[in-house]
Structures are given as C-alpha cells and as structure tokens.
C-alpha cells in the first residue's frame, strides 16, 4: 500500500492534479463503503469504464 501511495503522489505531482486529492479521498471513502456493502466486485463488460 505504501508503494501505491508513493506512486499516487508522484502521479499527482507530475500531472499537476493536486485538486484530485480531496475528490479522490471522498470517492475512495464512498467507494469503500460500496465495497464493504457488497460481496464481490464483478465488472460488467463495458470497455470505456472498466
């Protein structure tokens, strides 16, 4: 997880997307709730989204 967060920080720095941080935080929080609320993550096959 540490490696991933480092990557994420590097990405935001290079792409200058710091504004995504609060959005990301909220979305991860929200998404985390959805994950907890369901059993498994099965993707329907829509290329553009997944």
């Amino acid at each position: 997880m540490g490696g991933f967060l480092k990557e994420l920080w590097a990405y935001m720095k290079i792409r200058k997307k710091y504004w995504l941080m609060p959005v990301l935080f909220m979305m991860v929080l929200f998404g985390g709730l959805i994950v907890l609320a369901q059993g498994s993550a099965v993707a329907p096959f829509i290329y553009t989204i997944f």
Partner: protein
Amino acid sequence: MRILGISAFYHDSAAALVDDGVVVAACQEERFTRKKHDSRFPRLAIENCLAQGGIALTDVDYVAFYDKPLLKFERLLETYIAFAPRGFKSFAMAIPVWLKEKLFQKDLLKKELRRNAPDFDWDSRLLFAEHHQSHAASAFFASPFEDAVVLTMDDVGEWATTSAGRGHGNTLEIFKEIHWPHSLGLLYSAFTYYTGFKVNSGEYKVMGLAPYGEPKYKDLILENIMDLKDDGSFRLDLKYFDYCTGLRMTNARFDELLEGPPRTPEEQLTQRHTDLAASVQAVTEEVVLRLARSLAAETGARNLCLAGGVALNCVANGKILRDGQFSKIWVQPAAGDAGGALGAALTAYHLNQNQPREVNGASDFMKGSYLGPACSQDDTKKRLENAGAKFRVLDDKALVDEVAQALADGKAVGWLQGRMEFGPRALGARSILGDPRSATMQKNLNLKVKYRESFRPFAPSVLHDDVSNWFEIDCESPYMLMVADVREDRRREMTDDEKELFGIDKLNVVRSEIPAVTHVDYSARIQTVHADTNPRYHQLISAFKEKTDCPVVINTSFNVRGEPLVCTPEDAFHCFMGTELDVLACENCLLIKEDQDPALKEDYKNAFELD
C-alpha cells in the same frame, strides 16, 4: 537487451518478447486458455514467449506494460465528476473493481512476475507505456519504414482515442491527439451495439454488413452526432450516447434520431440495419480519409503506419491506399490491444532505452506475424497418436500435392503448419482452406464447418505475384488488412432479379470466377502470400494453381464461431472431429475424415459461447 511486453486486464491479453530489437515471439493468452478475448494476466503466453526465446524470466532486462492504470483512473474520476450526479449506477459498479484490483495493477503485475522470479528487482525493471504510445510503437517500430506518419485510432486508452505521430529511425513522437469521450472507435461500437452485435467483438460484422446497405444515415450522423472538421478532427455530441455514465452505448435520443430502438441480437436483420452499418462505415471512411489527407499535407511524409482497433477496418484501409496520399501503408497485424504488448516492448527498447533500429528497406519486423508457438513434426506425430488420430506421414512435396488435390476436389481442409499467427487473422498457419471457385464452398464451410449463418464472404489468400491479375491492387497485403475489388474481367454481372436478393441469398449468387471470396460489392479482403515468410503455404497455393490455374484459396480461421484460433495439434484434431472438415494437414501428418474412429467425433457446435 531483452524486453518482455505485456497487455492485460481489459481484453485480449498477450505477451511479446523482443531481443536486441528482434521480435522473437508474440502470442495471445486466449490461444492457450481457449477462452476468447481472455483478459487475465497472460501467464501462459509469457511462458510460451520465454520458451520460444530459450530464456527464463530472470534473463529479461525489462518488462513493459502497455498502458498506465493511474491515468485511466484519472479519466474515470474526472468523467464521473464532470457528469455527476448522473452516472452513479455506473460509478457504484466500477469503483469496487478499481479499488479492489485495477488501481493496484502494478502490485498485481509484480506479484504475478515474482511467481517465476521472486528475487528479481521488479521495482526498477517494470516499465509502463501509454496505451496509444504502445499502439503507435507497434505500428512504426515493427514497420519496414525508416520514416513514417503513424496514425492510431481505437475506442479509448488513457485519454487518447486517436493519435498522430511521426516516426523516424528509433524515435517516435506523438504530436496530435483526440481525447475521450470523442472517439471514432466508440462511435463504431455504438452502432455495433445499436445494430444488435456485441461491442468489442461484433465490429467486423458491421463492416461485413455494410456493403448490403446504402449509407442513408451518413448525413444525419454528420449533421447531428459528429462534428467533423476538414482535417479529420471531430467531436461527438454526447447527448446521444450513454457510455460516459451509463451501462449502454446509446440512449433514447439516439433511438429517436435514428427512428427506432436498437436491434436485439436475435432479431432478424433488415435493410434498415444494413443501411445503418453502411452509414457508420461511410462516416468512418470519411474521418479516416480526412485524417490521412491532412497528415500527408502537414508532414509531407510518404509512408503511413496504422494501429489501434479501427485499423482492423480493412475497408477503410483500402480506401486510404487507393486515395494515393501515401505511397506505402503498413498496418500492424495485431492492431488491437494484443499488439499493445509488442508496442510496449518496442517502446521500452527504442524510446526508453534509446536502442538503435535498423531497417532493411524491404521487410518488416513481424516475420509474417508467425510469432506464436510451433510444434515439431515428431511432437505433432506423438500428440496426434495420443489423441487417437489415424494419419499418414508424407514428405513435404507429397503433402502439398495431396492437399492441393483435395482442395481442387472441393474438400474443406484444416491446415496447421509452423508458428501460430499473432493477431486476430489466420494467415495460413492455423487456417481452414477451400476452393474459392466453388459456388457451394462458402455455404458448406459456413454451415458445416464454421457453424455460422454468415453474411460475410471468406477471405482469399493469393500468391503475391498473381495478386494484380485477380484483384485491383498491386501492392502487398500480407496481413489481410486491405480490401480491394475483384478485377472486372473476373466478375460476373448480377441479373436484376439477383440484385433484388438480400443477405446470404445475395451472397450465394455467383458474382465472379472466385465467388466464395467475392463480397456483394465485388470487394475482397486480400492476403498476399509470400515465399519468404510462409514457404509451405506458398508451395500449397502454387500447387493448387498448377492444378486449377487459380492462384487463390479460401482462407478462414481454424476455429468454430466463438472459439479462439486453434493452437496445438490436439486443438486442431478436436476441431477436425467436431466439424465436417474433410482433411487435416498437421505439419507432415495428413488425416482423412473417413479414416478416423467415429467414436472420437464430438459435439463441437455448442462448445463455445457465441461471439
């Protein structure tokens, strides 16, 4: 320096091995797992590439992945923000997949790679290329050109849906992009969905359906759905689409504009559906032609390289060729995402590691696209014996002669020779062959062998030296990615009654000397066969020509509908026994259907999910 390229996790997982700039091996995972468009980590494809290179994973200098997951996630998030609160349902479905798996693709890749090389320093050896960079690299670095314009078009990568670049020597610079959600590939996919076919696999059916229709909706599309500029750049009016936030490609406004709901997969095809297919095909050709013309004018380049899923639209490719803006066009045979594995490896080698590239001016770097596994004659013999097959072992000349005679006698022949093809097309290594002169061959192959009621004709393989005697084209098309017309003097005019026929009935009318490979508009999807890349296939067609005076054979993929191309002699034998193929030539082993044990026949028709 050895680089292993990987594409995975979306569709068509694949691996490719590049050693000092030479493409050693490349293959798709689906061929090994027998699951069409398999998107899982390509473990078996990697193993096979390494085995073909005679190396272990630890001997590889770098592994390159074909896209950048974080940038894709960025697009996803920004799209949801832009459309919020619409798209919640889609968000609720997508986000768990990303949070649980896709966001951590680098870790997932490292975990998979560590299985075979636990002590390797994957943190510094794992590289990532952008999706369209990978496509562009697979098109230019594998091409025979020292200098070329590169055009890539597909559904979407990270952000780019279309990109243009300039390749020179070992450099490649992307200088223009069209970004999501404006996408030519997605427009085509939207019509694929709307005409009742599967998105991401049924696009070629829309292309095959187009010649039956009139492009009646072309102006409507260009006036309402797409704002197309003179230079080929475009924007889509998103109010007609659902793909940004929903779970369908199009919406009710799209239905209203085109005056009807989408066709369901089981619904009968009508003239309206063929007109829709013809219209989106005409729009696609218009976009591609304008892009090609503006790039030619802007850069002055004489060579064009194409890749990305839209580059598999061989009808559009043929139009660019005939337009004459470029002297030469080269299309990556694995133009879809599988080819991204090769592109990622070549990006790492030439761009990241700044390694030289030497073109010989004549041939490309794809070796005819015969980059997959092969099976030696001894191994083939053993495997067939174990499978219970009855066969004769012939020398090369006798094999070619007997198969050519079988073709001339109207038999359907399974042909497994040498290394398997990389990319979606069978090119004479894993092919089903037939006599194109036969008026009934097309119907027989469709119904008894391929199990499809197809409105598409089969493709011809023709000796390269003879191509211009039969088709209106005088250049190479080794990868079956160019469409050209059957020469006028080889055609037969349809009567007025015949012109009134529709669909497969029209296709069954004899329209040329080679009816089985002639589409209703007299076009054909041509593969030129070359002695230097596939000598045995060249010998076979030459032998067929000697017997019949016809240097053309039907070439369709060695599989049934929904099945990946056969890979091993066992796969070929199962397909042979499950269909009404008459003859099977596996390396030097010749199998005749009547000689086989009837108990080994199997129900093959329903063995695979339909595409």
